[in-house]
């Protein structure tokens, strides 16, 4: 006769047939492997839940790859100018204004470099991400630049034609008695002038490509990634900043959700399990904290600690330059939800038969808490971790938007804040990139919370 438990402990899905209950118990029948639990099985059958878990793992891996050395994306890269400001992403065909600005940006900088006291050095220093200056002599570069500037003057003429056409169209629109044919003609004139200006710009762009060739191969891939989301109003890469923000969000989400779940479970568990004075104290504490709206706590705490000139003990940096104010703000507010739920569950479990039996056979409180109560509230901790994570990410965006959150590194809130004034100008890709990435992460977490609840919470209504 063999002790089934000792064999099946590690193996997932190994058939377990305790032929003799007593023998099984003597062998220290451990609970079946993690994957064998009915809740876990139910969760694994939920396709969208598993997909969400995979997606979240992907985000976490990405965040770790950014945070740990060799950094996938360094902080400097997110602050570096890579082109003209407000350039649309690769997937958008740039409007005439954006193309002009791009050409002007590159030509101006090469012009400046040529005129500097040490042209060779400043030409060598010209670097817009991977788009380096072509290896040519300074004279050759000057010659190409002259050609480009000439072409630019010709383009200016075409631009004048476009302006005239636009003014004419406005006059037609303003005059009340213009016929439909007149309006149509004016519109066509503008379109033609625009096409003409576009054609006139092409030689300039050709010269720019000659001076600063677009990289190919691996460098081209990197360059494409940088330019994918276009540039913000300071000429920084939006795609890099949006991806780097994953790290910021995960960092804040992880730390605050961990604090919330650990503090909430400890206090909630103690309150529910011991009852009496402890219970009163904990309930009283969270009723006190929750009598001020969440957003007010966030704003006030973040503001107060951003102002203060304390230094953080381990880092030796002033508190305002770290994420500590944000962590503090969330730590005060987010544990309450977990605490409530765990307290209720602990109170319920305390009265159940198996706890009474455990007490009867002489288990101490520590053993009861770790062996009997904890496994039964573990799912609640996971669900609340997921909920706190989402709350932290969404709260961080709001705080950063109000200027009270992250500083010194990109975050989705900062991206949205930066893009606020540009949206009115039709420049929406910065808002789009931040929103899209944040949406995917938060959506995945929402789906995961639902799937966890479906699988583990018997009371949950799906």
């Amino acid at each position, binding site marked *: 006769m063999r002790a089934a438990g000792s064999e099946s402990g590690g193996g997932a899905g190994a058939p377990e047939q305790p032929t003799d209950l007593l023998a099984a118990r003597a062998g220290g029948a451990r609970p079946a492997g993690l994957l064998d639990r009915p809740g876990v099985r139910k969760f694994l059958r939920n396709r969208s839940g598993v997909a969400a878990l995979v997606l979240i793992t992907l985000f976490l891996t990405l965040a770790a790859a950014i945070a740990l050395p060799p950094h996938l994306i360094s902080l400097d890269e997110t602050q570096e100018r890579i082109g003209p400001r407000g350039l649309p992403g690769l997937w958008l065909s740039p409007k005439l204004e954006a193309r002009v600005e791009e050409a002007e940006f590159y030509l101006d900088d090469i012009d400046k470099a040529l005129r500097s006291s040490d042209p060779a050095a400043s030409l060598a220093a010209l670097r817009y991400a991977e788009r380096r200056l072509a290896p040519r002599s300074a004279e050759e570069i000057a010659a190409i630049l002259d050609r480009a500037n000439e072409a630019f003057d010709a383009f200016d003429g075409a631009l004048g034609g476009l302006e005239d056409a636009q003014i004419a169209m406005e006059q037609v629109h303003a005059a009340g008695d213009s016929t439909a044919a007149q309006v149509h003609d004016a519109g066509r004139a503008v379109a033609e002038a625009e096409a003409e200006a576009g054609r006139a710009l092409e030689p300039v762009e050709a010269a720019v490509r000659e001076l600063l060739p677009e990289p190919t191969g691996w460098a081209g891939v990197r360059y494409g990634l940088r330019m994918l989301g276009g540039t913000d109003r300071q000429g920084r890469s939006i795609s890099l900043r949006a991806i780097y923000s994953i790290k910021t969000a995960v960092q804040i989400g992880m730390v605050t959700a961990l604090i919330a779940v650990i503090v909430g479970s400890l206090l909630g568990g103690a309150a529910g399990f011991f009852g009496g004075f402890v219970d009163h104290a904990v309930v*009283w504490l969270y*009723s*006190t904290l929750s*009598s*001020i*709206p969440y*957003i*007010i706590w966030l*704003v*006030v*705490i973040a*503001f*107060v*600690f951003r*102002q*203060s*000139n304390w230094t953080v003990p381990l880092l030796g940096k002033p508190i305002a330059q770290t994420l500590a104010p944000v962590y503090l703000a969330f730590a005060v507010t987010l544990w309450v939800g977990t605490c409530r739920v765990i307290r209720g569950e602990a109170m319920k479990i305390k009265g159940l038969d198996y706890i009474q039996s455990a007490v009867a056979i002489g288990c101490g409180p520590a053993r009861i808490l770790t062996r009997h109560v904890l496994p039964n509230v573990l799912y609640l901790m996971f669900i609340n971790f997921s909920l706190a994570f989402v709350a932290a990410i*969404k709260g961080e*965006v*709001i705080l950063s*938007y*109000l*200027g009270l959150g992250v500083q010194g590194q990109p975050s*989705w*809130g900062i991206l*949205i804040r930066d*893009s*606020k004034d540009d*949206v*009115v100008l039709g420049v929406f890709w910065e*808002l789009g990139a931040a*929103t899209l990435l*944040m*949406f995917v992460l*938060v*959506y995945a977490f*929402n*789906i995961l919370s*639902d799937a966890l609840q479906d699988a583990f919470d018997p009371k949950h*209504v799906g």
Partner: protein
Amino acid sequence: MWTYVLRRVLYNIPIYLVIVLLVMALLRVNDPVTAFLSKNATPEEYALRKHELGLDRPFLVQYFDLLGDVVTCRFHAKSWYRETSTVGQVIGPAIVPSLSITLPALVVSTLLSVVIGLVAGSRRGRRTDRSLMFLAVVGMSISYLVFILLGQYFGAYWLNEKLGVKLFAVSGYEGVGVARWPTRWLYYCLLPVAISVVVSLGYDTRFYRTVIVEQMNADYVRTARAKGCTERRVMLRHVLRNAMIPIITRVMITLPFLIVGSLLLEYYFTIPGLGWTLYTHMTNKDFPVTQTIVALLAAIFILSNILTDVLYALVDPRVRLS
């Protein structure tokens, strides 16, 4: 009954006392006078200012001062940011703008989401339910800010500039003149209200659907069906009525938050409500106003908590005994 009310009141008083203590301590983590004065102020200026503002008095005196202000509802401390007015004059006019956004938003979003919850709950697991809940989760996953930015862009800017329909203001608020109030309200407040409704719809719909589904599993639903009630009658007469308790609870819980309004909405649309006032005065280091608004909010919250408890006790006699 009255002993129950008294017990609730007595229970909540120490909570309030501590919350005010916490708020005052928190706001004194940095010296408010140093924050307010510039860094190169002389010690004499500093001492004078501190004395003027009454911050050199013992902490307990300041504490009871603030408590007294809240209890008597008279806020005569000077605001630091708008130096000519008292704290009361700053806070008072901010209440109506806040309410004119949040109250309609609460009513509309509750009605809408209860209806959607009923529809989804009664078709549980079917396509309507699944797509509605999908939309709800999508709505929950999009940041509040995005709703505000896009709402403002399309609702105000795009309509004004591209279509020439001047329906909503881009931002701002105008005082209440009774005769033109409805149109002014539509012009300035309808867009923020609509955004607020859209934001809360996701959360509310899911909550109410859960409530409805829970009720639909109850025995009385089966009985009602067995005796031949139509599905419509089961939903409206039986399920909805029984679901009223959690619905009312949720509405009651949100009531105190109406006062502060939505800080974000007010900040973005520059509506001079309490949230906006708190934010601007706080970032301009107006210490008395910040302190008073937070203390006042806590008081309102606790009062409405007591009210909720009492209402429960009135509705359900079992509550009184526990």
